[in-house]
Each structure stands twice: as structure tokens, then as C-alpha cells.
């Protein structure tokens, strides 16, 4: 005898308990601390801050712990938390030419004022598993040297001085805010950049990669990639001047791309731009390539029909919180819609069968 399924509530509570137990794992193994995650899984923390669009390493580390290392789940926790925070005001734009750089490279010039700084990069490591890391070791110490440069001008600024690269004109208009206004198309570049900077790293990477393989190729060079700390300032109306409210680490990538020009307009390189919270250089480079591809119309290029040129396609599908939610919602019960489909298919089959029978008679 059938009794309608009850007990959803208890099942949920039990599932949550089980999840908590699994999260902790074997209790003979020491529990991870938030500080350990923050310090030793820093790149994961950076990604969660970037795509969660909230700069707080401790909260990001907590989210990673709570999500058992599922970074999209961690990003989701941060985004949901972010919703509850009041908006106190806006910072002034950060000044990345004043950045205290940990890393600064240019692929377009061998040397440049301020020099090339490799910084803490995987680039030239041999990807061999280091079994020494499996054993507990002593803390490595890197050499340090006092910097003799206090300012690192941007590579694109050199090019701009000679008119070799297209000038980006500053404006005083406030950009629209993706987190406060609904996305509407056409979006325009400020919204595109906001969307890309918190877009899924894998998605932005793949779209960027597709441009390199010929789907709207735009011949990028990394004009400059820099990672470091910048000061965040905020105007305090009561004081009448701006005060430092803290320091954040960001990754900035400026690409120098294929030139435009005509008989009347001299040839010029064009730009793509990426700026992401934390040390997140794969994402920043990808972002710059996608930004550049999306600018085809403004730069008078042809629409090749490539995915990377399709603003609506890229922006509507870049957010992993939207994507994962909608994808996973098909786990929810759909038996009402399925039942209507079932009835319809039965009806259509019945009619076909009747028609065949009539034809046979």
C-alpha cells in the first residue's frame, strides 16, 4: 500500500549531518586551520576572492574549508555572503602604475624602465612531483634585495607616447555596476570587464584559447603582466579628502594586439585589458584576450561569427554560480513536467496506433 512520501525535512537534516562528518574526514588527522589554507593554498584563496568578487582572504579560506575544497562551491558561499553586506561607498580607482610589484614581465620589450621581475612563478619550474614536499620540511627562505625603483611605468604608456597604440580616453562618467543593475545587452565595455573579472576561470580561459586557435584571432602579445599590492583609497565626504582604507593584491595584464589603420588613419596597435583580484595571472591574461575579441565592433573589425566576439554569448555564460545552479537544478524533482510529457507521448502514441489500425482495416 502506498503512502505519499513524507520526511523531506528529516532527510535534509540527516544529509547535512553526514556532510559535516565527511568534511572533517578522519579525525586522527589534524584539522586544517583557516590560516593554513590562507597561507598554503593561497592561489585557491585568490581564485575564490576573484570570482566571489569579495577581497577577504580569511573568509575565502573559510569558504574553501567549508566547501571541502570545491572552489565553485566556495565562490558561491562568498557571493551569497556578499549579498548581505551593505554598500558603504565606492573606492577611488586603484592606480596600478603605483603598484608594489611582486612580478612584472613584458613579452614585447627585452628590458624596460623598472626591469623585468619574475617573482614567485611556476613558469620555469619543471613539472616533476616533488616528493620532498610529502615529508615535512624546513621552511624555505628566498633571497631578498631592496628595490631601487619606486615606480614602474606601464609598457602601454611608452607605446602611447609615440602614438603607436590606440589611446584609451579617460572619462568621468560612473560605470554601471554589475552587482546593482541587471545585465542588459548591448552591455558596453565597463560591464563586460566587470563580468569577465569575476567570470569562471576555466570558461574565460577556453574562450581566450579559442581566439588563439583562429576563432576571431587577434594576435596578442603580453605587453605587460604585473602582480603586486596597490593601495585602496576612498573619499570620505565628512573629511573632504581621500584616505587609505587598505591594500589589495591584484594581477593586471595589458595585451598589445594587431593593429588597425587605413590610408587616412595611421596604423596603431590595439589593447586588451585584464584586471583580477589576487595572484591570478592565467585569468588576467585570458580576460585581456577576451576583452580584445569583444571589441571588434568598436575597432571596425569584421564579425567572424566566433564565440569570443559574441558579447551576449560570452557574458551570459561566464558566471559559474549562475551556470552551476542552473545545471544542477535538473537534480530537483521535475515529475510534474515529466508527467505532462508522459501523458502527451502516450496520447500521441495512441493516435498513431489508431491511425495505423484504421489504415490496416
Amino acid at each position: 500500500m502506498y503512502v505519499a512520501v513524507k520526511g523531506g525535512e528529516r532527510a535534509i537534516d540527516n544529509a547535512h549531518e553526514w556532510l559535516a562528518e565527511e568534511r572533517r574526514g578522519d579525525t586522527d588527522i589534524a584539522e586544517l586551520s583557516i590560516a593554513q589554507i590562507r597561507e598554503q593554498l593561497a592561489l585557491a584563496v585568490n581564485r575564490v576572492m576573484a570570482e566571489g568578487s569579495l577581497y577577504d582572504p580569511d573568509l575565502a579560506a573559510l569558504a574553501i574549508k567549508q566547501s571541502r575544497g570545491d572552489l565553485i562551491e566556495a565562490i558561491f558561499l562568498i557571493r551569497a555572503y556578499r549579498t548581505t553586506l551593505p554598500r558603504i561607498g565606492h573606492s577611488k580607482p586603484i592606480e596600478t602604475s603605483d603598484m608594489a610589484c611582486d612580478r612584472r614581465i613584458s613579452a614585447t620589450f627585452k628590458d624596460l624602465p623598472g626591469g623585468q621581475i619574475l617573482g614567485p612563478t611556476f613558469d620555469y619550474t619543471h613539472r616533476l612531483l616533488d616528493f620532498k614536499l610529502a615529508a615535512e620540511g624546513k621552511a624555505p627562505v628566498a633571497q631578498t634585495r631592496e628595490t631601487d625603483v619606486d615606480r614602474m611605468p606601464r609598457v602601454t604608456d611608452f607605446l602611447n607616447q609615440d602614438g603607436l597604440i590606440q589611446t584609451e580616453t579617460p572619462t568621468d562618467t560612473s560605470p554601471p555596476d554589475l552587482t546593482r543593475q541587471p545585465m542588459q545587452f548591448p552591455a558596453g565595455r565597463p560591464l563586460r570587464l566587470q563580468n569577465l573579472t569575476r567570470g569562471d576561470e576555466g570558461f574565460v580561459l577556453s574562450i581566450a584559447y579559442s581566439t588563439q586557435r583562429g576563432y576571431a584571432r587577434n594576435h596578442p602579445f603580453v605587453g605587460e603582466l604585473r602582480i603586486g599590492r596597490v593601495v585602496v583609497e576612498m573619499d570620505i565626504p565628512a573629511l573632504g579628502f581621500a584616505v587609505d582604507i587598505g591594500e589589495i593584491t591584484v594581477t593586471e595584464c595589458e595585451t598589445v594586439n594587431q593593429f588597425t589603420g587605413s590610408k587616412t588613419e595611421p596604423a596603431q596597435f590595439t589593447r586588451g585589458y585584464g584586471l583580477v583580484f589576487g595572484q591570478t595571472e592565467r585569468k588576467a591574461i585570458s580576460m585581456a584576450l577576451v576583452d580584445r575579441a569583444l571589441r571588434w565592433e568598436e575597432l571596425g573589425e569584421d564579425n567572424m561569427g566566433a564565440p569570443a566576439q559574441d558579447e551576449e554569448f560570452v557574458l551570459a555564460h561566464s558566471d559559474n554560480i549562475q551556470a552551476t545552479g542552473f545545471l544542477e537544478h535538473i537534480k530537483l524533482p521535475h515529475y510534474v513536467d515529466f508527467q505532462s510529457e508522459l501523458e502527451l507521448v502516450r496520447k500521441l502514441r495512441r493516435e498513431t496506433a489508431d491511425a495505423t489500425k484504421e489504415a490496416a482495416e
Partner: protein
Amino acid sequence: MSDYNFAYLDEQTKRMIRRAILKGVAIPGYQVPFASREMPMPYGWGTGGVQVSAACLTPEDTFKVIDQGADDTTNAVSIRKFFEFTAGVAVTEHTGEATVIQTRHRIPEEPLREDQILVYQVPIPEPLRFLEPRETETRKMHALEEYGLMHVKLYEDISRHGNIATSYAYPVKVEGRYVMDPSPIPKFDNPKLEMAAIQLFGAGREQRIYAIPPYTQVISLDFEDYPFDPSKADHPCDLCGAEHTYLDEVIIDDAGGRMFVCSDTDYCAGRQADGHRGRLSPIQEAAE
């Protein structure tokens, strides 16, 4: 209660959502863009409905949540608990007692009243989306009332299957103007869209809110010679014997045995309490 603001969202955000709702009510069936927030449940799991409910709820409200018609499906439980926790409102499983009802995929069988609000969770608000994927294009089609393509879809259904092959999320025209997606309710529920209660639709991921004010004309699209048919499984409920309700099909043994039960669990329980019995009712008749 909790440390969060009443019903989770801050007042600024609720005001923004209320403005969108008012605009939606003023232009029935029109999709109003709104700045959907990240909620603590995933997109696609009712975040649009949750934000609309959060903007509508007052401390005096009594809240009911159904998913697939049932109050105790997991996601309904989860959303109900969310508002119990963040808003401290009274909750109920009885349609008649609720002032705000959030639903996914069903309209309650019991007719709603003027003092009730029905909030739908909507996955894809754009009825033209699967005919034209581009938002910029579909907005133009709505603005210019170019709905020929919608009928092309129905035409294709009939020419291929002999019938209109849309069984849920069946498109409607609201007050003679906007073509609207009623969310994935079965077409059986479409006639109930003309009701006394106010109906609000929230699509969180797609950032749209729309509405059907009370007593608004809602017509399911069709052809004169292939009229809209809100049919359902041709059985009575095996628990309460109702002949006029939408039914779930339940497989009860390995041999393909099945039974049909009301998808609206509250309605079914109410009928059983009133003494109605179906073919397989487990409740013993007191008289026997």
C-alpha cells in the same frame, strides 16, 4: 530569529525588487529586468521566487512553499526553513491559511483569494528563447508584438505530431498584449492563471520579474481548429478519489503496477480528511 535583516535581503534591495514588481503589475506579462542578488541557495533552485517572496513578506504573513505541488519535497522544505529562519514568519501547509505561497511547477487546486499572493519560481522567463536565443532580438519581438514565430512553433508541432506538443510551460498571451511563459506548470494549470490572487513571477538567474494582476485575461496560444486542451491523466486520484485534479504517477511494484495520486498533497489530504476515498486509500473507513 537571526542576525540577518528581516527576510535576508536588506531594505534597499527589497525596495528595488518592489519597484520591479510594481512595474510588472502595471504592465501585465512584461518582463521587468531587476538586479537579482546572489542568494544562499543556487541559481535555478528558486532564487527569483525567494527574492520576490522576501520583498513581499511582512511579519504578519503566513507562508507556504510547494514544489511539484507538495509541501515536503526537499527544495520546498529548504525554502520554507530559510524564511522561518530569516523572517520568523508563520508557515503552513494549508493553502487556505497562507497569505504568500511560493510555488514551483504547480498552481494549488484550491482556488486562491484576493488576499493571497502566489509567487512562481521561473527558470527561463523568455517564451521566445528556444525560437530565438538572442535577448536583444526577443526584446524587439516583444516590443513590436511580433509573435508570428510562436505560432510557427505550434504549427510545426501539429504538422509533425498531429497535436500541439507542448505539455508544460505552455505559452500564454496576457491581457491581449504580451506573450508570457507561465513557468513550467503543466498545461492543466493554465486555465487557473485567471484568478483572484495576484501572481508574481521571479527569475533570479535571468534577472527578470513579471506579474499577472488579479482577474487578468490569460489566453493559452492555440489554433481555432486545434484549440488548447488542458488535459491530464484520465484517472481519479487513488487516495482521495478526486477526478478534477492534476495527478502524479507513482510506480508501486516491479511489475509495472502504478497508481495516480494528487500532486497537490495538501488538497489531497484535505479531501481525505473530509472522508473522500480513492481506490487504494490506506485509511480504513471508520464505518467499516
